Every structure is written in structure tokens, then in C-alpha cells.
């Protein structure tokens, strides 16, 4: 997994509360294998009309924000379904960081598994960023994960992230490799648990 340390890039505001994973990746694209890429499916029905034409007003279609690598969202970004493909679609499009006041829990967990930073800003800071980007869409935003700071123009502020997720992103660590070092502990737990809760295993159906 790629490390995330520091990123300076254009940032696209998506000031929509409860922007759920059905919007980020409509369900009909869930059949697409990871290897095929999901960039064109990202926010499909908000970016394109039913004839496949771009909606020019949608922020990500505006010239200044087409190549954004950061999204500034609103409350409860990524709520809804557990589809990790919502994160794949963001990542494949080139997004590496979403800044928002809060995130859907499963989405935030999926993001860290793929090297996408979910930076939690206060409502006021997120709104201020959205306003600044509205005034000057070409303004660059810097997200520094080591310092946990976001900077835009002369404004800079601290953001929140779970410290474990921060460490994983900074190092590009993969959970499965990590769990490998706990194999003996898992086996011991399993043995003791079988004795403690014999009923927990599925019975053989008659």
C-alpha cells in the first residue's frame, strides 16, 4: 500500500451532507472487477446525466477541479453501504484525501485499507475551506499527516484522525501482514474458546 505523508493539490468542494456510497459508486458498477478501474464510475449519476453527458455545474466537472486529489466534503461523508468499491472509485480517480466533519464508519475503515486519508475537520473549518475554494478554485490545499495540519492560503488548522490509522497510512502498513505475527495468540484463543463456549460452533443440521 502507498504511504501517505504530505500532499499539496487542488481540492474540490462537495458540500453535500450524507453523501452516501450509493452516490460515490452506484450499485450497478459493483460487478466491475477492481483491476478494470472505477474512475469513470465515481459519482456517476451526479457527474453525468442519464444520456452520459457531463453535468457542467457539478464541482468535479469544473475545469479547476477536474484534477483534484483532495475532496472537501460535508457531514457523514461516505455513509451507507459497506461497498469498498466507493473507495476504489475515489482512489482510481486520483483522490488521496477527503476532508469532512464526519465520515461513515465503514467507509473510513475501508479508506485506510487503501491508502486514502479521511481527515476530520470541524464544521467551521470545513465550511471555511469550502468558502475559500469557492472564491478561488485554483487555491492549493496542503494536508500534512505527520503534523496533522491542513493549510490553505493563510489559514491552517489541525485535523483529527485515529492514531492507529495515522501510523498505518504514514507507513503504508497492511493489516494482514501485521496479523501474521499474532498467529500463536489466535490459535491459543481458539482452543480456550472452544472449551469455554462449546455451543458457539454451528451444530450439524440433522
Amino acid at each position, binding site marked *: 500500500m502507498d504511504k501517505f505523508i504530505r500532499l499539496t493539490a487542488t481540492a474540490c468542494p462537495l458540500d453535500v451532507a450524507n453523501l452516501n456510497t450509493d452516490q460515490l459508486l452506484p450499485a450497478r458498477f459493483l460487478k466491475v472487477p477492481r483491476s478494470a478501474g472505477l474512475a469513470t464510475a465515481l459519482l456517476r449519476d451526479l457527474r453525468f446525466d442519464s444520456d452520459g453527458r457531463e453535468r457542467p455545474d457539478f464541482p468535479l466537472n469544473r475545469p479547476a477541479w477536474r484534477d483534484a486529489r483532495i475532496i472537501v466534503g460535508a457531514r457523514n461523508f461516505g455513509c451507507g453501504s459497506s461497498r469498498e468499491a466507493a473507495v476504489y472509485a475515489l482512489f482510481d480517480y486520483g483522490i488521496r484525501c477527503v476532508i469532512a466533519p464526519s465520515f461513515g464508519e465503514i467507509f473510513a475503515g475501508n479508506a485506510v485499507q487503501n491508502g486514502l486519508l479521511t481527515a476530520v475537520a470541524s464544521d467551521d473549518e470545513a465550511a471555511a475551506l469550502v468558502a475559500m475554494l469557492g472564491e478561488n478554485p485554483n487555491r492549493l490545499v496542503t494536508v500534512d499527516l505527520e503534523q496533522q495540519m491542513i493549510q490553505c492560503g493563510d489559514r491552517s488548522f489541525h485535523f483529527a484522525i485515529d492514531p492507529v490509522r495515522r501510523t498505518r497510512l504514514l507507513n503504508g502498513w497492511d493489516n494482514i501482514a501485521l496479523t501474521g505475527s499474532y498467529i500463536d495468540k*489466535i490459535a491459543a484463543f481458539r482452543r480456550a474458546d472452544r472449551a469455554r463456549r462449546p455451543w458457539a460452533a454451528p451444530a450439524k443440521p440433522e
Partner: protein
Amino acid sequence: MSEPLTLFDKLWAAHEIVRRDDGEALLWVDRHYVHEGSFNAFSQIKARGARVAEPGLTFGVADHYVPTRGSRRVIDNPEIARMVRTLEENTAEHGITLFGLADPRQGIVHVVGPEQGLTLPGLLVVCGDSHTSTHGALGAYAFGIGASEVAHVLMTHTLWQRKPKRMRITVNGHLAAGIAAKDIVLTIIASIGADGATGHAVEFAGPAIRALSMEGRLTLCNMSIEAGARSGMVAPDETTFEYVKDRPYSPKGTAFEQAFEAWSALTTDDGAKFDREVELNAAAIAPIVTWGTSPQDALPIDASVPDPADEPDTARAKYLREALDYMGLMPGTKLTNIAIDRIFIGSCTNARIEDLRAAAAVLAGRVSKVPGLVSPGSSAVKRQAEEEGLDRTFRDAGLEWGESGCSMCVGINGDVVAPGERCASTTNRNFRGRQGPGARTHLMSPAMVAAAAVTGKLTDVRPLLSGRKV
């Protein structure tokens, strides 16, 4: 005296293998359900050359993509056929029991798990689906996970998690006649918001919850995620034990006696601390429907949709305008004046036998003014409904009696609501495009959907129940 614990504290402690200094804990998984959508995770473990660690604790169910109308012998769409086939191949390769398309036990994973006795009180249950919170109704710790976590569970049967905060939602008093679990949960979501329980494991408690059947509790916990909570739960009691007993995979004989003893301790101790408490009065809960594009946009049926002009908060006013625009509704419209184009009764939220009975009680001897599909939650529910003659009631009303699967809740099997069409639905999400691009969804209880079918408009079901046995 040891510190009083919550139900959730007890469930968590029983599954903690290690807790690191940084607060992350490695948890043991008791049940892992996979479905067609789990193909990304199987690809991940294949790429690592790994095997499934506990095939005996892993169960596959074909639900997300299976056809729910017409014959199921041949799937016409080759892409959808491939999704179902891939699940068959992946489960066969790893020795995982599959309730596949032709299996009599097939159904929606969150209906089948409890129905087969696979989900039990005290277990930790995961599945690559956000509505896994459903299984908490039995007093299990159950939550949805993403594809990378599915791969992690397949390979290790464990999961790294940080312990969530604890929240208790107490519903006092008793529900009035004609009010269902769906009305409770939509009222809760409307009250605390779509992110009102984010970061928390929710325990539902109080007399109104205790009085719910297992079906009702499953509906309640199912929609915990729509309030932001990854897991919701109800402490097991007599209702739970009666439900679990004698199911195909549930413990028998001595094992059941041991289980019963362990399950009886799964309650929140007096004086246990929650990080957040919310209380509701059941008597104040009316039949409720959603009008907008988030489950929090729910109002009692006698209300009118909001008018953005009356909203002082500009961001909120913008949200209301956009939601009303998508839903094709004029500000201030009375909910009971909203005409619908179709109905859907189905999904992991509301397609169990009790849900079908509630809808049939309203529809009996009446005709639906709009077309609609009834998709039972499992093949077993379908058989039982047919034994009870409920299928006849639906057919006689002019509705289609379908097969079991996720169907029109998520639309990925091809059963969608057409663009611009308005659907009264027993499902869980009224998101834009959820039931198909441009589809307009109103969420409500099965009885309320049946009432909407009878009148062709959003309707208070209560007058339609007068003189009927419910």
C-alpha cells in the same frame, strides 16, 4: 464487586484476543457470511496465495444478484450469471457451505443467518454488508465490513477494531395499534439524525423493545446503520431463546443448556455506564414515512413535507430544496396527497413472515391501485407464506409474488424502479438512485406500504385496519 458492564462490554470482552497499547484489539469472529459481492475479497486472498482459515464458520448465501422475478433456472444477463457463478466457485474451492440459488435455504443473508440458527446470542458476526447490524437483534455483536476486512477475516477469522462508544436507546411505554418496529426505528433516525449514532454500538432497550417479536427486533437492528451505528443489539430474553431453539444449526441437548446459561448473562448490569443515552416514548410514535433522500427525512403520516422557505439555516434550506427537487415534490405538500407509482415489499429490513402477514392483513379482499412486487426474505419464508395463503392475498390484490433476494432494495439484480417513478417501499435506504437511477423511494412499514397500494397514495394504515384481525 466488579464494575457493572453493558451487554456490549460483555460481548466485546468475550471476543478480544489481544488489545494493543494503542487501543486496537484483535477480535475473534464466530460467524462470517459471504455473498456474491464478496468476490473482491476472494480475489485478494487468491493474490496472496492464501486459504480460508475457518471454512466451517463461514457460510455463503446467494442474495444480492439473484433474480427475484420469473424463472430462476437460467439467468439471462451474463454479467449477473457470472456473479452468482463466481460465488459458487469461490465457496466450493474453499469448502464453504453455500445456500445457493437452487438451495431451499437460500434467501437474504440477514434473514437466513437467524432463520437457520447460525446467528446466535453472544456471537460476533460479520459480513461484507452494512446491514449485518440486523443480527444484533439476537444479542450478538454484528457489524458490516468492507472487502479488505472480508479478506482479513477469510484468512485469519479475526478482525482489528477499536472499541466503539456505548449508546443506549430506551423506548418506554407501549406502541399503539398499527405501529411497527419500522415506525420505531425511522422515528429514532429522524430524531437523532443519519449520523446520530456514529462511533457507537447501540443497545435498544425498554418495555416497547422487549414487547417486540424477533422479526420486529431484526427490523430495528437492521436500520441501526442508517443512524450511523455499525452495530445495534437487543439483550436476549425468552423471545430470543424461543426463536433460536430447534433451528437447524443452533445448539442441541447439553450444548443448548450450556448456551442458555451463557446467554442468560447477556444483559446490561444495573448501573452500567453508557457514553450516551436517548429515551423515546412509544406512545408518541405514529406511522412514519420518508419524504426525502436520507432515512432521517422521515415524518409522521399526518405531516406535510418541509418548505425550504421556512428554514432559517441556509445550508439546511439548500439540502431541503435539493431533496424535494429530486423527489419531485412541491414544498409543503401533505404527505397523504403524494401519489405513488408502485410498491415494493421485500429486503433484509422487512420481508420476514410477520412483515408479509402485516401487509396481507391490510390487502386481504382489496385491490392494489398500483403495480408492485412482493419478494419474501427467504425461500423458507416464501414456503411458509404460501402455506398460510398469503401469496394468494398478494396475487388477488394484483401484486407480483416473487422469489427471495435483495431485489428492488438495491436493484443490482435488474429489478429496478424506473427513472422518475415513485415507490412506497419496505426497504432501508431512500438514497438518490438507490432503487435504480432516478428512482424516488419512500420508506415505511409493510402495513403502510400495503395501505399505499390500496389507495394509490401515502396513507395512514390505521383506518384500514379497523375491524380486521392483525
